[in-house]
């Protein structure tokens, strides 16, 4: 791997000999998608060395989690990837349910799949908007926000918050969906493919777009795997790996959909993968709404889920459970270690728990796709032109809240 790009060996002498220019890009740079800082050594317009500096948004989520019970950690996960907080909540809840051995009801699985895919669409819309803006297409930005707004409005009607939703709960959901909401989501998905066609009209064949994205930031399938990439970035290189297919959570095995892949592993292919995912997610939502069954939304796990409110004041057992769960967390958590991954819009999001049987995790570790992708940024950028850095950052779709945690 080393010999394929320029960053090899001690390059201080090189900097002196070739009179490279060192440029600090970020952390307050609009095109670094947050507070990412890149230190670039430039030879003319060519990037010789690129060093990402992360940590500007470090809030110590993993450490905080050690001092919160399992229920209280949920709002923290909203703030990892705040662009698609629903997916992060879900990833956390699914991981904790695996740890506790809770089976959630079928209706909940359907609703979860619907909101996860809506959040995927919302995330990819924001990605397309900002990526296109970085590369030079202003109009797409405005159009994408129009649709993202529609999804956020639906989220607000669902749970009362637009961005940091805190909607799923361990063992279920905050509240059930009503049929009007489902109908409105269905109406949205009916119109959405037409919108995607509009975005494609604007940039798909546009010569500036093609020149800025084709053959830029190429990474081969083998190398992408070696770097630990996941999600659309990995699939852009032609590896059909999707956690939704591999581990089967939610109801992804009950609906028809395909894993979208690219061929060349360049910025353009990663763009194509996400554009195809729009339509796949759209069709998953439609099928879920058509199939959704009636039923309860909370799992029958009284040791881990809050009891129904009306029972709390009339029944002693319920009241005691309510108090213990809130003040101490679940007291019967199994001991051991558990890693559970889910496919969030940006890639594979994993939660690793070490549980010592108390109401709080002994250790929580988040495997965030953004962090892995940022670490591969030098590989993508070195040897290319300085303008392509922007296209590369956009194409790996990072959010620094999740990267720095």
């Amino acid at each position: 791997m080393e010999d394929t790009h320029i960053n090899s060996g001690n390059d201080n002498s090189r900097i002196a000999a070739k009179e490279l220019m060192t440029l600090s890009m970020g952390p307050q740079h609009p095109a670094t998608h947050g507070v990412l800082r890149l230190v670039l050594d430039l030879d003319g317009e060519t990037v010789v060395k690129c060093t990402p500096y992360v940590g500007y948004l470090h809030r110590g989520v993993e450490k905080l989690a050690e001092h919160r019970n399992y229920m209280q950690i949920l709002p923290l996960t909203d703030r990892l990837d705040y662009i698609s907080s629903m997916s992060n909540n879900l990833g956390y809840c699914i991981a904790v349910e695996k740890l506790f051995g809770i089976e959630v009801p079928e209706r909940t699985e359907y609703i979860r799949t619907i909101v996860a895919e809506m959040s995927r669409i919302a995330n990819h819309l924001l990605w397309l908007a900002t990526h296109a803006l970085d590369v030079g297409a202003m109009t797409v930005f405005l159009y994408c926000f129009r649709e993202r707004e529609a999804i956020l409005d639906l989220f607000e009607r669902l749970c009362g918050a637009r961005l940091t939703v805190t909607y799923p709960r361990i063992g279920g959901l905050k509240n059930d969906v009503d049929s009007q909401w489902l109908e409105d989501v269905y109406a949205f998905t009916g119109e959405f493919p037409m919108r995607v066609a509009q975005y494609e009209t604007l940039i798909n064949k546009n010569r500036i777009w093609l020149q800025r994205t084709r053959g830029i930031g190429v990474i081969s399938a083998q190398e992408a795997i070696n770097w630990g990439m996941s999600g659309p970035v990995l699939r852009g290189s032609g590896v059909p790996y999707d956690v939704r297919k591999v581990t089967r959570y939610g109801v992804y095995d009950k609906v028809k959909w395909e894993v979208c892949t690219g061929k060349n592993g360049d910025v353009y292919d990663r763009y194509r993968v996400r554009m195809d995912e729009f339509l796949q997610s759209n069709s998953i939502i439609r099928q879920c709404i058509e199939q959704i069954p009636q039923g309860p939304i909370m799992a029958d796990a009284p040791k881990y889920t809050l009891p129904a409110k009306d029972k709390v004041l009339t029944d002693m057992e319920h009241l005691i459970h309510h108090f213990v769960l809130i003040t101490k967390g679940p007291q019967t958590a199994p001991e051991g270690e558990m890693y559970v991954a889910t496919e969030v819009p940006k890639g594979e999001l994993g939660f690793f728990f070490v549980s010592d049987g108390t109401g709080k995790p002994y250790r929580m570790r988040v495997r965030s796709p953004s962090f892995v992708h940022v670490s591969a940024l030098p590989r993508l950028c070195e040897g290319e032109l300085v303008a392509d850095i922007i296209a590369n950052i956009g194409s790996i779709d990072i959010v620094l809240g999740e990267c720095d945690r």
Partner: protein
Amino acid sequence: MTATELIKKVFFIEVLQGLALTFKHMVSHSVTRQYPTEKREPVPGARGLHALVRDSETGKEKCVGCGLCAAMCPSQCIHIYTSEGDDHKKVVDRYEIEVLRCVFCALCVEACPFGALALTDFFEYSGYTREEFYYKKERLLENWDKYMAGDKGREYFEKFWRPKAIDFRTPVTATSEERKSV
């Protein structure tokens, strides 16, 4: 390069298609809201500023000072001070929320077993000093009168602030209607 491709390239066909789309949007109606002048109603159940429920019978707060909301709050921004009153009842002396630290997750509302705390749908609060956001009990009760007056508060509780968990004795297979009737 074939002839059609050449023609497409020379006449900027793909750029013209894109421009046609943008021009079409120029004459269609605008979706932008001019925010401060043109306000959007928050949807029912939106998670905004806190309110303490005023008991319509006693005219005082419903809260009994059990402290569950403070225990649940992930940002630890609720402070409750209680003392022993006449006939050994617990009296809530101070109930304070640091709104600037709140993340509006509504877990406190779910934790409260008495339905004594709610989130209103009001979200436009601003001020010049930090102290203004240190909400005292009186201010929180005022919020209830202001934003949840009449039946609205009760409806909100019915609709949004009841965790619909399962009852220990009802089987999982029961439909939601059956569970309601239990």
